[in-house]
């Protein structure tokens, strides 16, 4: 599998990562190398291997359903760029 500069631009946009135009060619080449490595790994026969969802071979611990977090709104609002009436304010998101 190869990746074009257009693919890279789209993935960067989806991930909200700004790419310096001067580095696009270089980044495309390096990601292409990683994909090349993945292609080689794909060649291994894994038909007898159970898919693994996590590298740790253990099970999710569950916590009891208890409210343990106090209200720390003032602390959190204090570090937000803009807030009002207990709300975080952000640039308008709907047209």
């Amino acid at each position: 599998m190869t990746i074009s500069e257009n693919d890279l631009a789209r993935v960067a946009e989806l991930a909200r990562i700004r790419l310096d135009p001067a580095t696009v060619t270089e980044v495309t080449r390096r990601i292409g190398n990683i994909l090349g490595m993945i292609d080689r790994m794909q060649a291994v026969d894994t038909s007898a291997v159970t898919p693994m969802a996590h590298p740790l071979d253990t099970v999710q611990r569950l916590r009891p359903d208890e409210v343990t977090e106090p209200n720390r709104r003032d602390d959190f609002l204090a570090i937000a760029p803009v807030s009002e009436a207990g709300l975080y304010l952000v640039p308008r998101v709907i047209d």
Partner: protein
Amino acid sequence: MVSDWETVIGLEVHVQLATRSKIFSGASTRFGAEPNTQACAVDLAMPGTLPVLNREAVHMAVKFGVAIGADIARVSVFDRKNYFYPDLPKGYQISQLDYPIVGRGEVEVALPDGSSKRIGITRAHLEEDAGKSLHEDFHGLTGIDLNRAGTPLLEIVSEPEIRSAQEAVAYLKQIHSIIRYLGISDGNMAEGSMRCDINLSLRRPGDEKFGTRCEIKNVNSFRFVDKAIETERERQADILEHGGSVKQETRLYDAERNETRSMRSKEVAHDYRYFPEPDLLPVHVSEELIESIRAGLPELPAQKVQRFRTQFGLGAYDAAQLAASRELAEYFEAAATGAGDAKTTANWVLSELLARINRDGLEISACPVAAASLGTLIARIQDGTISGKIAKTVFEAMWAGEGEPDAIIATKGLRQMADSGAIEQLVDDALAANAGQVEQYRATPADKRQRMFGFFVGQVMKASQGKANPQQVNDLLRNRLDGE
């Protein structure tokens, strides 16, 4: 002609689970709190925080799965669904893609014509809710309340086996009923505890292939689901009738205008780039857990309907209406026990009681008439103490808080006249006072007398102030008028 098209509908129902704390944090899920007072560092995606899964959310999902006879995944996996929106602080929603906790199951829904239909459920998975964006004007900015962020949701996905708005509403009501019976959600649609996405397409009857579908997002009442489906079906039929093609897209239902419209999203077409959530390990559900949950299940709506039909001889639709809510079903059973007549009790509960409950906007739990009292009232009809008509007067008084039926009957002197001598007297008086009509009656051919007969019954009942036993009055009049 809209009828030339078959409507194909699949529903995605988001159910808010009734846990005390969030799915991945210890913040409260209580509804209606001041903005952002229930959003902790985990919910806000503060650096260094990690999700820890709520046991109760897992148990509730399993409970639902067991209740619909679904396969429960012994191992299920959480994934990240990536998208950017300010009410989603992490930049991704933790959800389940390839290995959902609940697999294939089905529900049986009762339709108003008395028939029923099985509708398949593809899967149900656990995920977290997002926060709320407030688009009122904050100096050109949007306000964000993250209290709801991280609230546990169970997304229930149906097979595209629903064929009409009526079936869709019946299916939703059944899901609503099941989650309430199980106690895993309050199902309060007005507060967003149950929301629905509708996938709808049309095809020619007999076609194997589905048409192009549209998804209508976030419809939040049974009535709106019904209307959104009708209007979207007409819209698509109109396009297809005129030789056009339906564009696959996400639409919104506007209740005020009763129309669906395209969400003119400026975003790049959705590409959620799912991948396994590295912060959570696979969730294991043991056989013992499934069995202990199965053993603790309450009687479910479908089983209750079946029992009401066999035990009480009720019709399918009446039984389904009574069983729709656990509270109503329990009320009915308690009243029927006191009344000694389940069918009459069912009629009273479904007509008199529900009419007043709905009129006064009450929950059954806040009903001013106790089930046992309604039972006593119906028993008084059965034992001849009062007529069915007088019973309505007594019920009105009970509703107004005037006390128990026996006391009301006694104080208001509503007891049916049991003294046949007194009734005979009333009959004789009525006939004497209406001698002209009696003449006329006797001169009328027997097969045309019925209406005139009703006149005499009315006169006697009026003279008794409704307290004479109608059957006795009928018998006596029959005797006096036709017997000679």
